[in-house]
């Protein structure tokens, strides 16, 4: 279980994460959503100890996570938004370096490297240096590296950024599979449909503050599971309804440009983020 207690991070006058309290259960697939600059990456960076909080703390299974907490860190693996790898190493060296950092036996490192690189379709490029890989290949290599150590907690910061639709779906399947093995996954993403498809619960954050926290279904129910989009003078307005009958009734009184559809997590995100933007 991961607990964030009063987590705060400031950079000079700017507060990136503001008194964030979260509790992520073991085996949960948890999403952190928010607009650009909401504090998602900063939160993940603190959860991987790359950044230290200005105030508050992070606990893993009740033990504070610090840069000295090696036993806690052993449970963690992270896939960062940027390609955080030695560019002059080849794929095998990247994997071996990771294995050595986690003190895996050489035999295990060799076996895991072969298994994971083949699984990701990277086997034939194992001797290619990172700087000569495409963006998608680098992303896959980072996933192989993260999974090599069989972590209990996987932190994913925009793991499918830059991937094509097919690769993204493949990644979703892979993440579902590893989550079924009771791995706790914390995901930040710009793709809201990704969070809706994968996450048990999501936290919507904006300007470093927690706005909403619940399962995607519950958040959608709260807003209204039925949405009617109305286009008037190039302006799209959406109304949300708790029942289909209410939505149809409104639709019949609206113009021809109105359309009924199911509410998505993206609607929740837009409403919450939009409300905040208006309130600035």
């Amino acid at each position: 279980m991961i607990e964030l207690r009063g987590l705060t991070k400031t950079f000079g006058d700017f507060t990136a994460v503001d008194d964030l309290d979260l509790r992520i259960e073991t085996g949960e697939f948890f999403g952190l959503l928010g607009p650009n600059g909401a504090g998602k990456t900063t939160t993940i960076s603190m959860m991987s100890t790359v950044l230290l909080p200005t105030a508050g703390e992070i606990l893993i299974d009740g033990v504070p996570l610090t840069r000295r907490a090696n036993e806690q860190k052993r449970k963690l693996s992270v896939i960062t938004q940027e390609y955080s790898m030695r560019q002059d190493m080849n794929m095998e060296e990247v994997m071996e370096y990771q294995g050595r950092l986690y003190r895996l036996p050489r035999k295990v490192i060799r076996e895991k490297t072969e298994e994971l690189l083949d699984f990701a379709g990277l086997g034939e490029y194992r001797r290619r240096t990172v700087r000569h890989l495409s963006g998608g290949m680098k992303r896959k290599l980072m996933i192989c590296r993260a999974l090599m150590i069989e972590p209990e907690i996987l932190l994913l910061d925009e793991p499918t950024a830059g991937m094509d639709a097919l690769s993204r779906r493949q990644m979703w399947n892979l993440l579902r599979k590893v989550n079924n093995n009771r791995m706790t996954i914390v995901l930040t993403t710009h793709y809201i449909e990704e969070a809706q498809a994968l996450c048990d619960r999501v936290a919507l954050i904006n300007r470093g503050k927690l706005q909403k926290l619940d399962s995607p279904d519950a958040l959608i129910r709260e807003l209204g599971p039925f949405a009617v989009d109305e286009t008037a003078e190039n302006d799209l307005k959406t109304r949300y309804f708790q029942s289909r009958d209410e939505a149809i009734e409104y639709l019949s009184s609206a113009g021809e440009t109105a359309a009924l559809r199911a509410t998505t997590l993206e609607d929740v995100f837009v409403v919450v983020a939009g409300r905040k933007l208006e309130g600035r």
Partner: protein
Amino acid sequence: MGIVTVLWEKWTEFRRDFYKITVSAMVSPLMYLIIFGMGIQTTSHGEPYLHFLVPGIVSMATMTGSFSAIAQNMSVQRLYEKALDQIMVSPTPLWQFILGQVLGGALRGLYAGCVILLLTYPIRTDLIFNSLSLFIMLLNGMVFSTIGLVLSFMAKSYSDAPRYTSFIITPMSFLCNTFFSTEQMPAGFRQAVAILPLSQTSSMIRAIANGQPPDVIGFVILGAYLVVFGLISMVFIYRKKNL
């Protein structure tokens, strides 16, 4: 052990860039040897100038070899490649990572110094280089590796590493007992230069080369630099909030 992991990483780097590392370790010292030692033929303290110059150049080579191996590399890893994030999140104790970097950098410096010794071997200067000289070269490399680490943790952009070389390494190369004796410097400035690590390394290696025992104070000064910059690098890696 994290130290072995870092040394393995340094070894893969050395193996891959062997020619580049070797040639870059040779070029500047070789130029200095040719220009000042052979081109401008002169004497120092009644001896051929080359006898004075070789120990200084060897010391300088260990300094630049170690410093560039760490300062430049770590700045790139931290700011550009973000590869330091992988270390920070791993269970490898960070003090072992630091120690591995310091040893790895020192070995690169020692290699650079040994390349110069090999190059000057045919000149037959009759200078003595023994295991104590190698130890001093290693110690000097450790000092400049820790300085390189601290500066790389302080760097805010990729261009800071070359700046540090211009501000720190280049002045030390010329002032610290490498090309001329600090005895000729004005009082005050002479003492300030004398406590710099390269001055001590050059003095000790030169003393051994001439068959004299090295001044123990040199070990104390190098040890003090190692401890102080080692501790600063530990504080940075454990305490710096935005590494």
